[in-house]
């Protein structure tokens, strides 16, 4: 079939559809709706995913926290129920032995009821003693002043960096750098202010060098937990490193390496990848729903087209009598259905993408929701589904039309 006759045929079909506007529009809108919902759902799903991804990006994705617990398995003659405690040597040993660890820091904290005072203002904040490289693990950034450094650590200086909410409460808008605050009655100099946009909890913390913390507020070199970043992006490798560390600490503290309660790990890479798996499943679910609504649209188109065929029985009978082949009738029906599906489906697609864009622009600053958008591949996939569903919807009406016998259709009433 040459280009002109294809064009001719399309004109013929357009004309027919135009002449029966109401029917065409009602039919088409069902498909529009189906695709619209699918795009909206998918886009929102991506928005959730991107939001989580972004949140995790801000904290180093490959960070690992180790918390001590209580033994639950008797081991080498020692009963269970023994508390495990970490100290500085544990941190150093991990740093030395485990090759994949990058930044590492023990943490010692004074809880949230710790009294902090500046001149007349007081507040209660959590104070955490950390090594300078902790900044790399938690990914907060310094707004004013400087961060804690190795010199502070070595010289056991009484210096502190404050989260912006601490600064707000104690200093309001007055300058804070270089001023002295009292932490539990002990004087510390403020050297920096930090912010952490992705982590609500950090904004009202105070960080001080851990050496200082241990000297001033503790009896020994106790460490409450250990945080580190791991040099890998692979889930399996991350798990392997976890296991290495577990075994190392199990050896040092004499507990079974299978004892899951002696040690608790929080591996953000694993969590992230679990989230990603979850999202893959959510996405699958969304596709199922979306496809379901499209199927509803197809059934509805098919029904309407069947009714249309009944209505047009006389017309089809005339056409056949005048010489239209059954194949031509079938083709006509199929193309009509596909055109309705494609045209209205495309409209639904555009509407969906448009709404997503508006959502992206106006829904900002919502936690875990960012960039709800559809990539081109998905959009084309949706379009392909439309064409196929149009064809599918058209099969039954087409067969009906093809079976119309002119003599029956033209029977004068």
């Amino acid at each position, binding site marked *: 079939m040459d280009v002109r*006759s294809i064009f001719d045929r399309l004109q013929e079909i357009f004309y027919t559809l135009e*002449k029966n506007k109401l029917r065409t529009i009602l039919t088409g809108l069902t498909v529009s709706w189906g695709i619209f919902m699918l795009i909206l759902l998918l886009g929102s799903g991506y928005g959730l995913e991107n939001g989580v991804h972004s949140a995790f990006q801000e904290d180093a994705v490959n960070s690992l926290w180790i918390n001590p617990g209580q033994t639950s398995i008797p081991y080498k003659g020692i009963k269970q129920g023994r508390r495990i405690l970490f100290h500085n040597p544990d941190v150093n040993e991990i740093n030395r032995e485990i090759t994949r660890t990058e930044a590492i820091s023990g943490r010692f904290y004074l809880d949230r009821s710790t009294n902090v005072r500046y001149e007349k203002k007081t507040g209660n904040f959590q104070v955490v003693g950390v090594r300078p490289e902790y900044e790399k693990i938690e990914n907060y950034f310094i707004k004013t002043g400087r961060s804690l450094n190795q010199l502070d650590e070595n010289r056991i200086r009484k210096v502190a960096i404050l989260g912006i909410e601490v600064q707000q409460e104690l200093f309001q808008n007055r300058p804070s750098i270089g001023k002295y605050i009292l932490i539990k009655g002990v004087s510390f100099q403020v050297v920096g202010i930090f912010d952490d946009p992705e982590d609500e909890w950090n904004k009202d913390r105070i960080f001080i060098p851990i050496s200082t913390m241990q000297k001033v507020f503790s009896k020994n070199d106790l460490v409450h937990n250990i945080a580190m970043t791991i040099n890998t992006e692979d889930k399996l490798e991350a798990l392997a490193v976890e296991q290495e560390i577990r075994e190392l600490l199990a050896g040092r503290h004499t507990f079974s390496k299978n004892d899951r309660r002696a040690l608790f790990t929080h591996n953000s890479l694993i969590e992230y990848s679990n989230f990603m798996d979850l999202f893959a499943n959510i996405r699958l679910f969304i596709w199922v729903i979306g496809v379901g609504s499209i199927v509803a649209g197809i059934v509805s188109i098919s029904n309407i087209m069947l009714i249309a065929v009944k209505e047009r029985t006389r017309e089809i009978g005339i056409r056949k*009598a005048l010489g239209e082949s059954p194949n031509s009738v079938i083709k006509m029906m199929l193309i009509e259905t596909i055109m309705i599906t494609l045209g209205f489906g495309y409209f639904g697609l555009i509407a969906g993408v448009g709404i997503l864009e508006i959502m992206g622009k106006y829904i900002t600053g919502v936690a875990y929701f960012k960039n709800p958008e559809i990539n081109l591949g998905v959009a084309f996939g949706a379009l392909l589904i439309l064409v196929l569903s149009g064809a599918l919807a058209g099969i039954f009406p087409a067969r009906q039309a093809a079976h119309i016998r002119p003599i029956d259709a033209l029977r004068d009433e």
Partner: protein
Amino acid sequence: MPHQTHDPNIILSLKNIHKTYVQGRNPIPVLKGVELSVKTGEMVSIMGSSGSGKSTLLNIIGLLDDYDQGEYLLAGKQMGKMDETKAAALRNRHLGFIFQSFHLIPFKTAQENVALPLFFQNVPRKKRNQKALEYLEMLGMTQWATHLPNELSGGQKQRVAIARAMVTNPNVILADEPTGALDNDTSFEVMKIFKQINNSGITILIITHEKDIAAMTDRTLYLHDGVIHNRIIK
């Protein structure tokens, strides 16, 4: 391929045609050995009471229905059992149809209605619309070319139908009660047009139950009790 020498003057030849309808358990024989032959350029009418099988006969001749027994030659070619695609193509090429209720497509203009048979021949749009206009002109319907059927009177609609039947230059035009829905004066007009067309050499076969209409044709045949007679059987 016809295996007997065919008289080139005979455009339609039916020999011993039988057709039986199966209604439930009882087969109803409608045509019981129809013999019919029409010369090129004749205008022939077939009369018969209702239920006599006139429509059935016309359907068979018009390749819209098949027959159980016998032989049907159209323009010298055997018209036996064939698939619908082939039948449609043959209809389009050799036959033109005119119906009692006109059967124009309601959402197409007069011109588009007339052009439709050419669409099935893959004639490009411009050319077929042009041809359609020519035939409308022949029938005095030029200023109605862009009108829809529901804007036309009965006589005008039938004229459009006639133009449509002629547009493919068929061998035979088959008309099923062409004046059935028209008043006396309009019927007369339409028959005049038929005569004109016939004079230009196109064979016309008219089914009718009206004596006056039959009288205007060259020859009248009577379908009665499943066979063709040359005279009225009382």
